[in-house]
């Protein structure tokens, strides 16, 4: 079947099997390998992308179900060579080590800040609790997202 969706602002159309998972559609059909997968039971959360602005686990969405929707992945965060403040915050606060959960964490963070520009540490921890990290112990991820909350786009490009 054919599926059409908007990915990082651009419309894409591909021929897919109905059973193709969105994460595989993004990675294998569109070459957007920044979104990862890490489990079989929808628990680990490293596959998170934004669908119509909210974070979802792309391993538990069929590409077919994403038809007509707007998908945002990590590859779309940097605009015209300028990092999103979330990306900048992750770098400055050492919010990543192996980098495998990082795209998911950053997409979740961007969605959080869009809805709640000044979250507390507790609100951040709740927002990211659906993605597991084995490297950072979460502290620096929280700091990274706080950094992004405190530094607007204007500051980063200045």
């Amino acid at each position: 079947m054919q599926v059409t969706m908007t990915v990082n602002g651009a419309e894409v159309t591909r021929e897919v099997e109905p059973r193709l998972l969105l994460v595989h559609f993004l990675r294998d059909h569109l070459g957007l390998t920044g979104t990862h997968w890490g489990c079989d039971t929808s628990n680990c959360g490293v596959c998170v992308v934004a669908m119509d602005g909210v974070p979802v686990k792309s391993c538990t969405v069929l590409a077919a179900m994403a038809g007509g929707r707007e998908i945002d992945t990590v590859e779309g965060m940097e605009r015209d060579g300028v990092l999103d403040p979330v990306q900048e915050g992750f770098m400055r606060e050492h919010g990543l080590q192996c980098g495998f959960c990082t795209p998911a964490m950053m997409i979740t963070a961007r969605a959080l800040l869009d809805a709640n520009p000044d979250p507390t540490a507790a609100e951040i921890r709740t927002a990211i609790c659906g993605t597991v990290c084995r490297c950072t112990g979460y502290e620096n991820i929280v700091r990274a997202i706080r950094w992004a909350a405190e530094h607007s786009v204007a500051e980063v490009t200045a």
Partner: protein
Amino acid sequence: MTATEARSNGVPISPAGNPIGFGRMLRKEDARFLRGKGHYLDDIALPGMLHGAILRSPHAHARIISIDTAAAEAHPKVKAVITGATLEGLNLAWMPTMSGDTQAVLATDKVRFQGQEVAFVVAEDRYAARDALELITVDYELLPPVVDALRALDPGAPVIRTDIEGKADNHIFDWEAGDAAACDAVFNRPDVVVAKADLLYPRSHPSPMETCGSVASMDKVTGKLTCWITSQAPHAHRTVYAIVAGLPEHKIQVISPDIGGGFGNKVPVYPGYVCAVVGTIVTGAPVKWMEDRSENLMTTGFARDYHMHGEIAATRDGRILALRTTTLADHGAFNATAQPSKFPSGFFSIFTGSYDLEAAYCKVTGVYTNKAPGGVAYACSFRITEAAYFVERMVDILAHDLEMDPAELRMKNLIAPDQFPYRTKTGWEYDSGNYPLTLQTTLDRAGYKDLRAEQAESRVRFAQTGEGPLMGIGLSFFTEGVGAGPRKHMDILGLGMADGCELRIHPTGKAVLRLSVQTQGQGHETTFAQIVAHELGLPPEDVEVVHGDTDQTPFGLGTYGSRSTPVSGAAAAVTARRVRDKARIIAAAALECSPDDLEWELGRWQVKGTPTQGKTMQEIALLAHSTLELPEGVEGHLDASAVYNPPNLTYPYGAYLCVVDVDPGTGEVTVRRFIATDDCGPRINPMIVEGQIHGGLAEGVGMALMQAIAFDEAGNCLGGSFMDYLLPTSLECPSWELSETVTPSPHHPLGCKGVGESATVGSPAAVVNAVIDALAPFGVRHADMPLTPAQVWLAIQGRPARTDLAFGADGAA
């Protein structure tokens, strides 16, 4: 660290704003990860690449009667189906393990654990490969499994390794260290108090977020085999492949791409990797095998699974005299652990911990069970996680029995600063440490006295009202030995654990450092550049760190056991110093003076007394490639290499304190605070060191409270998915509070000790000690991890469960 701070710290700042040497520096590798441009194994797509999938046994112990692959082979997208019978013809059905045993690649006679590899399908895409697995029919004859390790040596227990000629039991090894007789003498003294306990460190799993996988590509024309592998030790893998597959080693290239976490899970050679190699040879196309999470949890190298009986002897006023243990090690169906060959139980004999003892003795017995193979993994520093947990629980149990404060008991018995270098009763020589300072730092940071006061109040309230929460305070003081290791004592499969390093300075003064270690997130591309910067005064942004490709880097045994900084870091420093020495000669030639007339000022050789006369490293690099006449001692160009054979391990250590609140009505545990003081010597990049510690502390919370792989009576693995193998999230972890002390290692060129596993080693005991402490009003003395709400409640009832078995299996329900 701002530029001003760094300069006042003595470390100048480079044009890009980085410290030229040790200090806080943002990571070079972040550039690609932040943009989703990391290059992980599953990102690899080669033209014509096929996908492999493994059919696995649903049974823990069964004879294979027949395998019918005809339907799978007939699937239009399937290119090959390989079974144990196929491999037998190639002499590849079994492969050597890193412990001198053999392991089945694909089962031939029997399956010996649930999840064991039985057949390998190669298909055009991963969906078809998965479909094809359903088309293979295997006829099994069930056999009784050995699930309870404590029964593995019972007379009449089913024999698992019937493939080993003459094997009539499930025994693997016995190993001992220390002095049993000296211990007996101490324990038999009349004035001595003895505390005994049985401690289980349950089977756990490192579970990095990226699973294991490989892409194997054989070029039939050139005969070259290229393998991309999620490997923490690419050179060791290359050598093993050469031995196992009989392929010439110079025709094998192993590339470790970006790795999404290792934690020891990515050290072993897994059957899937070997199958991918066979797949590419059989089909002529590249073959990718990427395991799924259940395969990762059920079949790849697990960690721990030590049943430790401990006895500690002390005087009544709290002077610890001796410690001994008999321990049963559950290795699963094959002995496939990777540790130095003379140490079948790894470095477990460091169980004497951080205390000055008169005597110590351990005996470890390894057994087979019908479970996945493994045991050494998950930041264990070769079983030091087990040893550290053991001693720190025993000390707390002793404190409980003596009714003594656990901090006071520890302070009274820690090795004193003037006792270093300290030789333990089991033969380890600790290099340096100021243990009391580190413990005191933690106690002060935590506000220990106030915490105990608050706890006293919470106990009064509970006694009066029956309402919680109950507060618990737990300590853990650990010493570990890392940086394996001196080749005289340590080898894996006969390969000495010395690491190579090559440094080359280009004509324009940029450097390339080639290493045998392999980052899985630890930041090597940054920290090793900082080492070169520290030694040569080159900006770290001008130093490229190359690793992970066996065609591009010198031989070494890879990254695990926190050995990167102690071994490869030392190699890098030594190599850089050799480059600096050559640079001196070249500078002297250019300045027409003697090398002895020159002194080193970071980045520059200059004439003593006339500092304006000198040459920077960049100038020297150009000179080295120029027409300059060079004297004896240098041939030209500017490079050096070294193989670093560490003279000893290094001994990072730390003092941890955990505060918990326990709900006695439900058994739920909340980790309120965690204070960690680590001493790993000088810190090359404090930001990275702290990140490593944060991660390890989270592991402690996970293992203490929720992570374990148990088995039911039929040998079914109860932790085969993330629905039951639970990893801590952001909500279970507190905001970590870190402090540091610094006692350099006297034998390491930079004084650095390594830190990657310290927090994983030290933290579980702190959390467990805290929970048991919280339950003191109920008279609880010990309960095994994981202290899930159910286990805490059972402990309160006086009947904590065995956590290696299913709930109810030991009659607990």
